[in-house]
């Protein structure tokens, strides 16, 4: 492609959605990734599309739009990524937890989120195999799930069909800047001229910002997901412990985990979710796997006999305030960031792409994007890993 209007770095789900949005807006878009499609954090996610795990905030507004955008996108590109409006069920087993969950769900409800309170009997009607210890839950019909790798691949397929180009296997090594403005980038194989670069490299977004002489405080948070062998439909929703919401917002470095259990279209059951701040530490941590297994079994005792088949390890990109970074760089014109979505990247991607596209093309945004602006970070907030 000669002289693209915009280059998106990163073919994860955020990069793919952003590229599709830009292509749909009529731009000539080139996507570059050092690896194949979805080879980073996207390939290690559950595919959460959640409205249930966010307090009323700018992020919830983004999540609500994004959830709808996923279904529009599904129709637009012809599906093929197992999008399922399965609904989320949030449970709590402690008095305090139940009180907090009631409070949160009421707040969400007053912000337009559909919530259904469930007593023990109501819960068993929709999740017959849940542990007897669970007596209170809230159903969020708006929660959904997709297969994230397929989603990214299908979206990239649409990008190519609509005139975009995808180059994989090229590693970006520098961002070319002239008078404080992006003029292109260099990979280990080629040079590309382009006035607009979108940094959708997730956990690695800080490196790209550094290359441009700017900064972005994005850090990795390690998460494991257990996968069982295929089983019949025994878990019908995404079922999770209310502690998950607290963990999502936590800045604690230690291991945190709360049970998240869900069935998938292919028959496997996914069990999350752990969060640890250990840098890019590789390898399997058996202690984490055991904790996840225990928590999942405590929610669904029947899982005890199911076979544990594999585990995913992903590095979720997060910013100090746990909000995504969407907008133009604080120091370099033409450099845009779409990163730092932590564990919510799959869910928030289509709306992220819409925001970026509207900002780049000067169109009206569906919400005020200020809370996500990279300009919110002061240099001192930058924590190196």
């Amino acid at each position, binding site marked *: 492609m000669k002289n693209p209007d915009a280059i998106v770095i990163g073919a994860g789900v955020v990069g793919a959605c952003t590229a599709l949005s830009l292509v749909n807006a009529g731009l000539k878009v080139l996507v570059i990734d050092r690896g194949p499609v979805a080879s980073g954090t996207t390939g290690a996610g559950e595919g959460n599309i959640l409205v249930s795990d966010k307090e009323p905030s700018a992020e919830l507004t983004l999540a609500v739009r994004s959830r709808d955008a996923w279904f529009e996108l599904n129709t637009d590109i012809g599906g093929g990524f197992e999008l399922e409006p399965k609904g989320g069920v949030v449970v709590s087993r402690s008095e305090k937890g139940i009180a907090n969950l009631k409070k949160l769900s009421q707040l969400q409800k007053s912000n337009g989120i559909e919530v259904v309170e469930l007593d023990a009997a109501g819960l068993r009607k929709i999740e017959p195999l849940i542990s007897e210890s669970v007596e209170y839950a809230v159903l969020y019909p708006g929660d959904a799930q997709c297969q994230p790798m397929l989603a990214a691949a299908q979206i990239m397929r649409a990008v190519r069909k609509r005139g975009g180009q995808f180059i994989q296997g090229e590693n970006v090594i520098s961002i070319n800047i002239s008078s404080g403005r992006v003029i292109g980038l260099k990979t280990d194989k080629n040079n590309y001229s382009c006035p607009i670069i979108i940094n959708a490299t997730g956990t690695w977004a800080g490196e790209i910002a550094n290359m441009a002489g700017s900064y972005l405080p994005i850090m990795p948070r390690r998460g494991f997901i257990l996968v069982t*062998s*295929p*089983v*019949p439909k025994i878990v019908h929703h995404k079922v999770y412990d209310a502690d998950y919401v607290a963990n999502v917002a936590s800045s604690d470095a230690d291991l945190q985990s709360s049970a998240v259990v869900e069935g998938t279209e292919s*028959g496997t059951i996914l069990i999350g979710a752990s969060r640890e701040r250990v840098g890019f530490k590789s390898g399997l941590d058996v202690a984490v796997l055991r904790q996840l297994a225990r928590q999942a079994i405590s929610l669904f005792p029947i899982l005890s*006999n199911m*076979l544990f088949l594999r585990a995913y390890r992903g590095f979720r990109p997060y910013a100090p305030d746990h909000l995504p970074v969407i907008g133009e760089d604080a120091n370099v014109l033409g450099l845009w960031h779409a990163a730092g979505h932590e564990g919510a990247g799959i869910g928030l991607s289509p709306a992220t792409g819409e925001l970026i596209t509207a900002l780049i093309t000067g169109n009206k945004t569906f919400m005020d994007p200020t809370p996500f602006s990279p300009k919110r970070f002061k240099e001192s907030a930058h924590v190196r890993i």
Partner: protein
Amino acid sequence: MSGSDLQFTFDDQIITAKSGQSVGAALLAADVRKLRTTRFDQNPRGVFCGIGVCFDCLVVIDGIASQRACIVEVKPGMKVQTQVGSNA
């Protein structure tokens, strides 16, 4: 001691096996070759690798699904069932 006779059931059929044999071997000896049907295409499958590698000979044994017939040793009174999809 391997080799003495014992009985177990496969679905509704009573099958005589020799102790020490695997469930899969005992079923093959009784001319039972279809042990399960697959979860997408409902195709029959049986013993393939015979040594626990391929997981194709899955059966339900005493209520627990996805057991490898080729490596589980048959026991008297065992209740073995055809596995349908990912479970009975």
